[in-house]
């Protein structure tokens, strides 16, 4: 009984935060509601006895991705100062409409098929050792590839977001400074 109440509660919390993340006007609030939705999902994983995944989700999404999103929102704050036009694209009605159609398309088979109604088998004994062994034996290649991918993403993100001297009129890039950087004498 406890499991069902907790599931419905968490589901409601997650959906509410997800809707808020998509619908709120101010970006920072959206980002924080998204973090709350990720945390709610992590709790649902715990409720599903997927302990390791729940904590990994909490660590990666709430600990890292939420902060990344929030930093990105802060770095692009010029936007909010000039709130030109509405937050959503003009044809947002059709967007939401397609989403509702998509939802209906997903719901019908789920509700219709009988095989999905059965309850849960006994909880598997949580063992990080099994996950470790699996990672090191069957999934060792994907693990290495994900390592390479993460490094590539790290370097790529830094290179893309790095401030190039040739950027627009940023404080450190006015022509006077350019000459100063290139060492020409600035006769003040």
């Amino acid at each position, binding site marked *: 009984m406890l*499991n*069902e109440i907790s*599931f*419905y509660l968490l589901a409601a919390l*997650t*959906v509410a935060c*997800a809707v808020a*993340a*998509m*619908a709120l006007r101010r970006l920072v609030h959206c980002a924080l509601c*998204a973090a709350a*939705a*990720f945390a709610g*999902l992590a709790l*649902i*994983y715990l409720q599903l006895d997927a302990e*390791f*995944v729940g904590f*990994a*989700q909490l660590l*990666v*999404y709430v600990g890292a*991705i939420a902060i*990344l*999103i929030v930093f*990105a929102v802060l*770095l*692009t704050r*010029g*936007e909010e100062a000039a709130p030109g036009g509405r*937050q*959503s*694209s003009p044809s947002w009605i059709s*967007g*939401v409409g397609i*989403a*509702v159609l*998509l*939802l209906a398309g*997903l*719901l019908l088979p*789920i*509700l219709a098929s009988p095989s999905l*109604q*059965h*309850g*849960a*088998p006994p909880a*598997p004994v949580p063992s990080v050792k*099994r*996950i470790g062994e699996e990672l090191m034996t069957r*999934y060792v290649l994907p693990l290495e590839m*994900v390592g390479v*991918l*993460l490094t590539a*993403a790290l370097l790529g*993100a830094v290179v*893309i*977001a790095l*401030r190039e001297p040739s950027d627009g009129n940023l404080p450190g890039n006015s022509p006077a400074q350019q000459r100063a950087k290139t060492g020409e004498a600035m006769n003040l």
Partner: protein
Amino acid sequence: MMNPPLSHYLLLSALLFSIGFAGAVARRGAILVLIGIELMLNAANLNFIAFWRFGANPQALTGVMFVLFSIAIAAAEVAVGLALVIAIYRQRKTTRLDAMDSLKG
């Protein structure tokens, strides 16, 4: 200690997926589209874990493995995506997607 049936988890993940999709499609801000995509990814992860938990043989940790790798890749994706958004913002002083139409014919 009855667990809710599998279909409820699938309903939840479908709902989350459609919310993420609606946000990604309807909203104009680049960062909000990225958040929408994150939500869709999370909905997919929830499906994997639900099927692993309700599946016949939970000892085969395929679902869990899939979700672990998907989380790692999603983190990489967000990092690069946000770096792109920041680079574009620095160039054009806006993150509104419909303003980024310089490739349009």
